[in-house]
């Protein structure tokens, strides 16, 4: 039991993520800052690789970017400021999670739009069964009463 707790304690300290940080000398001494740096790196695209994050790539440019991320975090920038710094130089393309603006409305709205369309189509398809009839005319109503013997 105590060993399980010990394992869990270690797990608490080191939560996983994708890294290819190939040199432990790159890492910041302060584990909290290092963790933040890794999180920021995980949100940025490695520009010279195919679909990898800056944190997860072995490329030279990725190493440089990782170094700069750590420098800026150590200098006191917030996560958002570091990302803005990168976007100022490389554009929105470097973000793995696209920004939320007018151009990406369809992108971020996709889940809700999709469900809405799905539910809408289903409701439309069901409604056709229950086409409301036109109300009865006077003559028809009298015929109905006569038939029902009222």
């Amino acid at each position, binding site marked *: 039991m105590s060993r399980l707790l010990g394992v869990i304690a*270690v797990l608490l300290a080191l939560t996983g993520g994708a890294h290819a940080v190939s040199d432990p000398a790159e890492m910041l001494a302060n584990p909290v800052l290092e963790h933040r740096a890794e999180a920021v790196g995980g949100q940025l695209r490695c520009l010279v690789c195919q679909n990898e994050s800056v944190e997860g790539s072995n490329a030279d440019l990725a190493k440089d970017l990782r170094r700069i991320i750590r420098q800026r975090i150590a200098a006191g920038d917030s996560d958002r400021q570091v990302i803005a710094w990168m976007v100022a130089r490389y554009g929105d*393309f470097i973000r793995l999670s696209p920004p939320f603006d007018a151009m990406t409305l369809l992108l971020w709205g996709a889940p809700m739009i999709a469900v809405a369309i799905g539910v809408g189509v289903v409701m439309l398809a069901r409604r056709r069964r229950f086409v409301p009839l036109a109300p009865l005319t006077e003559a028809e109503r009298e015929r109905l009463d006569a038939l029902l013997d009222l």
Partner: protein
Amino acid sequence: MIPELGHFGLALAVSLAAAQAVLPLLGAHRGDARLMATAPALALGQLIALATSFGCLVWSGVTDDFSVSNVARYSSSLEPLFYKITGTWGNHEGSILLWCLILALCGGVVAAFGRDLPSALRARVIGVLGFTSSGFLLFALTVSNPFTRVWPPPIQGESINPLLQDPGLAMHPPILYAGYVGFAIPFAFAVAALLEGRVDAAWGRWVRPWTLAAWCLLTCGIALGSWWSYYVLGWGGYWFWDPVENASLLPWLTGTALLHSAIVVEKREALKIWTVLLAIGTFSLSLSGTFLVRSGLLNSVHTFASDPTRGVFILALLAIVIGGSLLLFALRAPVLSPAGLFAPVSREGAIVLNNILLCSITAVVLTGTMYPPMAELLFGAKLSVGPPYFHDTVLPLAAPLFAAMTLGPILPWKRADLGAALLKLWWAALVAALVGIAVGFGVRQAFAALGFTAATWIILGAAAQLVERVRLFRLPWRASRERLGGQPLAVWGGAVAHAGLGVTIAGIAGMALASTSVVAVAPGQTVVLGGYEWTLLGLHDAPGPDYASRQADLRVTRDGRQIALMHPARHNFTTQQQTISDAAIVTNGMRDLYAVLGDERDGQVVLRLYVNLMAPWIWLGALVMAVGGALSLADRRLRVGAPSRRRAPRAIVPAE
């Protein structure tokens, strides 16, 4: 000689496929029994011709025939025999030929096992398969021919990409393609039904086994791909939301929806239009996936050498196949007569919800994958969409799906009482909540806690299905046990498949708790990670057949007891000047020990160490899902497709 034979086989297959497309469809249209009867023969003929062709290509690779340009570009005499064979499909032309072979196999399989289908339906199905085949074979023969020659032949081939020299390579593409292409059969069934103008319960029953088979194979194919990237790429990731991975996920999602929808068509003759559309859509997504990978339009890890001319041909092919079938759908579907009515809360209703959620997830993944090129086309903006987007959008849709999928099988058909059904699951909900709370307080990670809750809920819910059916605790033990034995395999299949998904979710949740460490150590030093002690014993050279290699010996102990001896290595492939990391993985089913060798410097070497909790469960779960599918497939009721011919009632002679 052999390549010529292969080339000829390919050309022959084109003509046979064309005949296969025209004659049976004509026969079904005219009601001409003789023309319809040509279908199986033509399908089998095409299969034989193409199998021979493929065999010749493999033979050229095995015998190092470098006059064949495909072999010269992608093979080498230094490779082990295994990779000469399996490397046949590791490049564009070879993989297209494999695709065509499997498509031909589909036709052959329908010809062989579809004997009890009504002849018109079978003729149409084979005809549609022939039509699709002829398109792809024409592509293979003209623009993408693996049998082109190079003269004079080079002395040595350029060899396969080192990343692909791996046993996983042997299994991933054929199984994946079998899944992708396997959905051509439900597609053909859907188009055949639209041509006939009739979708009925019998059609639902006939379509199911083929859908199940393709689904099982696709599940295995995707899981193999994920597992392969886990142990090849060297940083423990298993899914990157890369466009090509998404391209394989999309047909899987709609294929799962199709599977469930077809049940409703069979049992209740409802959801016909959904099911037909899903069948067309799933194969369309498979085809579109091919287009995206081979056209070079997307930024991806997996793209083959891209070529816009190929892209144009495939796009035209897609326009004809997908556009044609959707046009047919628009024309014919509105007059398909709906039959069974059902209340919103019922098993049919649950399957409709299932369809909506799965199709929404499909739409979201499709939007995310296609957004970068579309945004550039329409707005001139350059953006990229990566894993964070998909996590933020897919998980909120998947959560209600996971919650509802336990409820669905418990609800009766036509009309159900939600409260009563939920009550039946009280114990599953309780245990799931307890697990969630325990994990949440233990590791303080919301993702893992929710994941384990969902996994427990789904697995116990699957068990609840069976519990309900045998009326456990409401009948005496023996009666329940007898009922359990008497359950049809399809029920077991469904429960096992659902449980399999739960296992995979548990694996993913566990991986979120993985611990990792990057260290620079000298031989003799020890690192502590995840409760284990990792000691670097030494480094040495270890050459292979076509590479030079540097290998480390790593001993892992726990409480003084040796757990494993690991040998992570780095291979340097001289021909292609590429260095590949060979991660060492040791698993005990509940966790993976994962070690990667990095650079060496000043007598120290960089090691990346991971303790991946519950990683094996991710792929184990996929295997369980496939087993569930196979169990369903084995159910006799599914395979005895056609209604038995009832003998004409004997004339009753009144007693005189």
